[in-house]
């Protein structure tokens, strides 16, 4: 009964998604076209990256399209698009390597380039070798986010500063990229497992919307300013620090109108929870369908809020209530809000993924047991790589700074990542954690990896200034 209802509701949500993805690709193609016209040179790095993005986006859309409609022929094209994207990606890597004269590992941009490449390769390996055909539904969106981030980050080639001229750097970063890509794969497999394992989506729905609600409630309650503004800490770009009025008192600037947008998002984010509550209270499943639709709407608004936040808080000067004049701010000044917004979109998308459970998808995926085993295998590949990555980094640090371990944030978070996966392995081996709990662990582990990769670089200060 419930399943029949779920299948009735699928087509509409599926259509929305396909239209959204299609529009996005059309937009990207248009941008790429403008870019080619502007530069007059077909084979430069920006165009190669755009090609990569378009193919990966196409692959992602086709994977998603398969997830929604169950048309198996989509998968073939998705795989083809991934191949094409990988070719463009390889060309971009080679171009960068040639231009910079060193492997592309020296900045966040270059590392993302390598990371996305590794991820695509591993996706194809998982597809061909282990027969996890729909793995791209999870890995391709991650790759797309990576390529989009690359567009935001600066792209000019920087010569290597003396500290980076070491073979150990290449060893360290290669291992890091391999390890992180393996972690991403294990995360994707864990998600597939949850889909295959007939997880009760309602509980996940409640948890998802409660946590996004908590994120937006805390942002709006603490930062909503008079007349719909959002107050953020002012940032001093020269000193790379927050601006202080006096001891421990930060200067806040107000970005107009952003407060309204976040409040609106708060209301929409709250609605799935309300519907869920109603469904529980009235014991009526039709409210659950409403809740699922509200989740789609909330993702749309969350993405909008995130984009607006990124656009407006990235730079620009804004007035303050406490001092006269205009002051700059930066994303680095609001680490918690930024990670909150990104995290909100992330968990909502995870929920979205779980909704795609369908009998044809279940048929195409390996059995839950197999997925669980492959997840474990991927982690048992990632863990030694993580260990060696940390060791190579320590050796390099010892050669450069005269100390193999200095507890700088990146090092510390790498160690935390290692510990999280060590915990996973111990729980699995000694406690026999299998299946769902192990899958949750793999998801948490990947979240920590992502924080170590991006979060630490942008949100926490430290020695790893170049990466």
């Amino acid at each position, binding site marked *: 009964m419930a399943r029949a209802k779920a299948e009735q509701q699928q087509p509409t949500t599926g259509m929305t998604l396909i239209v959204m993805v299609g529009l996005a690709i059309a937009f990207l193609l248009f941008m790429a076209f403008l870019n080619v016209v502007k530069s007059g040179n077909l084979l430069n790095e920006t165009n190669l990256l755009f090609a990569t993005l378009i193919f990966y986006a196409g692959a992602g859309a086709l994977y998603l399209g398969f997830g929604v409609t169950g048309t198996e022929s989509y998968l073939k094209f998705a795989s083809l698009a991934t191949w094409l994207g990988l070719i463009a990606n390889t060309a971009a890597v080679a171009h960068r390597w040639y231009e910079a004269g060193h492997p592309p590992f020296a900045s966040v941009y270059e590392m993302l380039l390598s990371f996305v490449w590794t991820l695509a390769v591993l996706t194809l390996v998982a597809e061909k070798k282990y027969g996890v055909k729909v793995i791209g539904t999870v890995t391709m969106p991650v790759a797309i986010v990576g390529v989009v981030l690359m567009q935001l980050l600066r792209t000019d080639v*920087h*010569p*290597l*500063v*003396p*500290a980076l*001229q*070491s073979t*150990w750097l290449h060893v360290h970063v290669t291992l890091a990229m391999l390890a992180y890509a393996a972690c991403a794969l294990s995360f994707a497999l864990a998600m597939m497992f949850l889909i295959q394992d007939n997880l009760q989506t309602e509980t996940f729905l409640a948890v998802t919307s409660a946590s996004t609600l908590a994120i937006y409630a805390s942002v709006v309650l603490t930062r909503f300013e008079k007349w719909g503004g959002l107050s953020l800490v002012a940032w001093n770009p020269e000193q790379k*620090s*927050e601006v*202080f009025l006096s*001891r*421990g*008192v930060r200067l806040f600037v107000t970005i107009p109108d952003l407060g309204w947008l976040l409040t609106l998002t708060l209301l929409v984010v709250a609605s799935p929870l309300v519907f869920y509550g109603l469904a529980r209270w009235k014991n009526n499943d039709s409210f659950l369908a409403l809740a699922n639709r509200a989740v789609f709407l909330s993702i749309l608004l969350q993405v909008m809020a995130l984009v607006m936040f990124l656009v407006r808080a990235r730079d620009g000067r804004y007035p303050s209530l406490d001092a006269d004049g205009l002051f700059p701010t930066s994303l680095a000044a609001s680490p918690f809000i930024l990670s909150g917004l990104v995290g909100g979109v992330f968990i909502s998308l995870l929920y979205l993924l779980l909704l795609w459970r369908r009998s044809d998808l279940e048929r195409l995926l390996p059995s839950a047991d197999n997925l669980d*085993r492959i997840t474990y295998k991927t982690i*048992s*590949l990632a*863990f*030694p790589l993580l*260990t*060696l990555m940390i*060791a190579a980094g*320590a*050796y*390099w640090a*010892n*050669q*450069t*700074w*005269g*100390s*193999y*371990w200095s*507890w*700088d*944030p990146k090092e*510390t*978070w790498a*160690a*935390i990542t290692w*510990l*999280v996966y*060590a*915990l996973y392995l*111990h*729980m699995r081996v*000694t*406690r026999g954690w299998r299946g769902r709990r192990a899958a949750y662990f793999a998801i948490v582990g990947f979240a920590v990896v992502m924080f170590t990769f991006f979060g*630490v670089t942008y949100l*926490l200060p*430290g020695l790893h200034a170049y990466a």
Partner: protein
Amino acid sequence: MAVGLRSLGHKTWRNIASIQTGVILLILVVILSAVGTVVLQRPATEPDEMQSAYSPQVLRILDAVGLTDVFHAWWFLGLLLLVSLCVVAASVDRFPNSWRYFSRPYKYPDESFRRALHPQKSVAIADEESGLVAAERALHSLGFKPERVVRKDHFGIFAERHRISELAVYIVHASLLLIFFGTIVDGLWGWRGYLSLNEGQTSNLVQIRDKSTSTLPFSIRCDAAGQQNYQDGTPKKWWSKLVVVADGRDVQKKEIVVNDPLLYNGVRFYQSSYGLNGKVEKLTLVATPSKGSGEKREIGLAENATVALDADTTVRLAEFFPDYAVRDGQVYKKSNYMENPAVHLVVTSKSAGKGFDVWFPPMEEIADNSKAPYHFEATDLKMGHFTGLQVSHEPGQWGVWSGVVLMGVGLTFVFYVVHVRFWAVPVCDPKTGKYSLWIGGSANRNRDAFEQRFNDLVASMEAELKPIPRISRSEQVATVAGN
């Protein structure tokens, strides 16, 4: 009483060795390290930055709890020690079992084991000997060295590979302890410091982190240092030619660059910075006598150096300001950056019995350059450089590196080396009197792949068995007849 104490000790031991304790401790380490990356940390952050970031009350609380220097706080070190203790206890607790497993391999499967084992298979054979021979051949062809197990009333075949895999996890734990040991040794006996040398300077004083200095038993001299730039002006390479001087002799020479330190007596010198030391190495001047028709002369001056211009007159480079400002008729140093340099020369004439101040750039409100007996023109200014060296002594790092290598080996064994065992036992059905060969196998990880291997083995055994029966029956008849 004594028994109570012993049982208490036993209980504590069991608690420390338990996986729960380990998990709780690791989670604590994770949380506290995460806190340590979010809260600004003391030695790395300047005190005034700390004071501006946190209000006084908050800062006092953070300081009191130790959250402003998490990674050097006693409770954090204590926690790491507890983790080590937990690893030791857990390993010691579980090791005897694994050791028994390792040192006394289970070669002959008894009946209850045979019933429960998966995967297993029974193959019909003509007699015991032919079955065992077939099994041996099949195992040989797979690269195993099968061994006949003969007990009082039964016999069979046992083959195994990579038994060491059973102990791999202890290798990993031991390597972790080795790394901890190395870092503890470094924490107790190691030190890090900074040494700044001008070109040509010799020193043995190292600045340690807490502003104290330490004297090395030898000195280090910098013969030359330099920087190479990329075309866009960003630094490409810093180098220093260093010489170790011990007992008045040069004992070791090396040109160090970033990533390639000099090592002497367990002390390492790392290139860490390079820059202007604010001192003049050589100021080139063209001096022309103000009166008469004396010749132009080019002279070079270092800081505080005096050069004779003629029999009567000398010039001295008295002061140098990399970045100057004038206030109330006085010249001040504004900063150490080469922004706006000024040079103060003193020209002394014996016959006039006094000195004349000369300034570059000319400063009329302070001194009139034209009064001096010589007219100067500055043509070149070469500044002195310093090379910044990180100095460190890490006696425990060999523990760390050997631990890392051992961990690599251990993890390889843990994840990729599988302890595989095969047993073959001939069984006679008491009712029918027919023989069959029971074959069983076990692997300590990666069981799905192992099952495939097991099936392959059984298939090859069956292939070995097929052509044999007729021949072996006649052979057996012969042997029976012979007896």
